[in-house]
């Protein structure tokens, strides 16, 4: 049955403000005009202010010599380097602490989240105590605590805490032995690459064979053995072409080895511990979101416990876990900007701090800093959308 639309009732035409389309048009034109007027006003003011203070705009300052040192840098940097270089150093330091923070927070978070669901009353209580304590204390306070109350209270280099004279911890930071690769070490990464390719091939072949014949090998264990065993075998065969440079106390500080500055340690600890408490809650609710019937159904099919987890619970839980997990990772990256409070040379501290103060180019520096974080956020959201589209339940 189809109903033909009735003709409009005749009569006087309603005034234009009763017409939804026209009203929307007018409203949007007004919005554009307001935003444009606001921007023009701001730009005008800014130009007048900049002229009054004698600041020239533009990105030319990036070519000038910075003239200050940075405590930790992953690339070549000296006080003779340019401001552009300080941007790169800061960015890399931000990415370093974020990457290591994400790693540690994931490990702690998953452990605590699973412990929270433990049938053991005490373990579950300990885990929820951890979550409730660290989630409800501001991150900046935790960073200060680790930096000023713990790491600054460590003994001087002479009385360092040490782990069998290889690893040293003192008020100047953590000192680790550094591997020195001799000639012939190149074979080991090659062996590892070969092992990776072989494991992928094995997994694919095993899956096909399983689907065709129903027989399967424990591919996971074999791959693990390959991945660890092959490089190790090559290492032994080539006669261990690695020496370790152990840090040594010379004068007032340690020389040699890898130095982890206390600012990094404090920031990394606080970020990992704080974010882990949120990840733990995400993991717990993700696992709890799987109805118990799913587990029971899988057990009724007589799947062993490991496969119940791997094939039924985890894939469904991950669908719930991953979106909030990514936004926690994003939070961690953004929170790493708190580095500036304790002087870890991250992007905000080096670039939006020292460089901004020295050059006075507030607009350029702040926009570049914000752009970096915006780009990271956009990339992560793109990934999220892609992932959500991939794992979304296909319903009817």
């Amino acid at each position: 049955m189809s109903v033909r639309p009735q003709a409009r009732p005749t009569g006087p035409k309603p005034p234009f403000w009763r017409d939804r389309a026209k009203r929307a048009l007018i409203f949007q034109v007004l919005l554009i005009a307001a935003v444009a007027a606001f921007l023009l006003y701001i730009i005008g003011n800014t130009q007048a202010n900049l002229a009054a203070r004698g600041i020239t705009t533009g990105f030319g300052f990036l070519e000038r010599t910075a003239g200050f040192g940075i405590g930790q840098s992953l690339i070549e940097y000296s006080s003779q380097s340019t401001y552009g270089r300080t941007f790169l150093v800061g960015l890399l330091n931000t990415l370093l602490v974020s990457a290591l923070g994400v790693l540690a927070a994931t490990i702690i978070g998953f452990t605590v989240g699973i412990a929270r669901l433990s049938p053991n009353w005490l373990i579950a209580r300990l885990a929820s105590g951890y979550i409730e304590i660290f989630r409800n204390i501001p991150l900046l306070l935790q960073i200060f605590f680790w930096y000023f109350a713990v790491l600054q209270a460590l003994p001087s280099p002479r009385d360092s805490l040490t782990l069998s004279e290889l690893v040293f911890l003192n008020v100047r930071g953590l000192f680790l032995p550094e591997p020195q690769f001799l000639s012939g070490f190149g074979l080991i990464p090659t062996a590892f690459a070969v092992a990776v390719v072989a494991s992928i091939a094995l997994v694919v072949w095993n899956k096909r064979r399983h689907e065709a014949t129903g027989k399967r090998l424990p591919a996971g264990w074999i791959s693990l053995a390959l991945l660890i065993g092959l490089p190790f075998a090559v290492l032994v065969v080539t006669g261990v072409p690695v020496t370790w440079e152990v840090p040594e106390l010379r004068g007032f500080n340690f020389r040699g080895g890898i130095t982890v500055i206390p600012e990094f340690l404090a920031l990394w600890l606080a970020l990992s511990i704080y974010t882990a408490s949120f990840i733990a809650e995400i993991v717990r609710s993700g696992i709890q979101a799987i109805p118990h019937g799913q587990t029971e159904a899988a057990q009724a099919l007589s799947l062993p416990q490991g496969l119940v987890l791997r094939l039924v619970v985890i894939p469904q839980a991950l669908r719930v876990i991953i979106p909030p997990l990514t936004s926690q990772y994003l939070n961690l990256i953004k929170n790493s900007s708190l580095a500036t409070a304790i002087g870890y040379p991250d992007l905000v501290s080096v670039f939006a701090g020292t460089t901004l103060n020295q050059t006075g180019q507030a607009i350029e520096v702040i926009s570049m800093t914000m752009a970096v974080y915006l780009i990271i956020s956009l990339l992560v959201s793109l990934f999220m959308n892609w992932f959500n589209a991939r794992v979304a339940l296909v319903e009817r």
Partner: protein
Amino acid sequence: MTIRHEMLPERPAPSLTVGPIAWLRANLFSGPVNSVFTLLGLYLLYILLTPTIQWAFINADWIGTSRDDCSREGACWVFVNARLPQFIYGLYPRAELWRPNVVFATFAVLIAWLAIPRLPFKRWVTLIALIGFPLFAYAMLYGGYFGLPVVETHRWGGLMLTLVLAVVGMVAALPIGILLALGRRSQMPIVKSFCVVFIEFWRGVPLITILFMASVMLPLFMPTGVSVDRLIRALIGITLFQSAYMAEVIRGGLQAIPKGQEEAAAALGMSYWRRMGLIVLPQALKMMIPGIVNTFISLFKDTTLVMIIGLFDLLGIVQAALSDSRWLGFAVEGYVFAAFLFWIFCFSMSRYSQYLERKLHTGHKR
């Protein structure tokens, strides 16, 4: 053959299946692995708690006026005690402390009224809390009205400033957030894209860069000669930041309202603002309260960042007190005290939000 005509008396259940022993067996020692975990957990608890309790309570010094009253064997709460007015009120003039106290008390009464479900007139109290109270608090804290002497904002600090930042940020962000969330669902393409860009921009950057922007770029945006108070600058930054997060919470709440509700309202001939104000938002806002409380908790914790741009909130003033030469070396006490205050606030709010979630979800739970 004997027939028993009365029931045997009930015997107590075997002691291994009820009571504390059964509970221990079921929850702590149900198997070898579990028993090992329990013992490990107990050991962990022992090595963590014993020194903490000894430090914080048993060996601690509570009374005194200077650092000489501290034995240094445990915590020196004398430091916190001596600095308590500063931690709470900042540098607010001592003679005027009754003013923040009145504001605190009013605030506590309003919050309690809103939080306890049984009390009536919720709508009116909400209105007072959102509109009347901020004006009242401003008049009381800043002064200049009713013959109260003016207290400049640079003398504000401590817990008072933390609460001011969080509450103002929240109250100012709520209407902006509602508009942004409605705009993001709008049919008008320009309004929609404007709102999306606005929300995603402020959500994409760290609060600290926003605060930096507010403190170094905002003066450039103003007409020459106009200077903005540092507290106001921080508040503008926090409000913009918070409104974006608030918009996302509100959008989530709006999405949970079935479309039929709005369509039914439209069928009754209601205009857009009536549909939103009378039908959709009242239902959505109720469902959003837990989410709003959660964003408030993160805002409350994030206010600590204002110390980086030179305001003395609770953490800022504790940090400043630690560098006082008369009280060097009491960092742990200061941080523990600040952490304890923050924790009390955040924990009770999160418990309240969980309680609300349970209360609101009763009908839908499977």
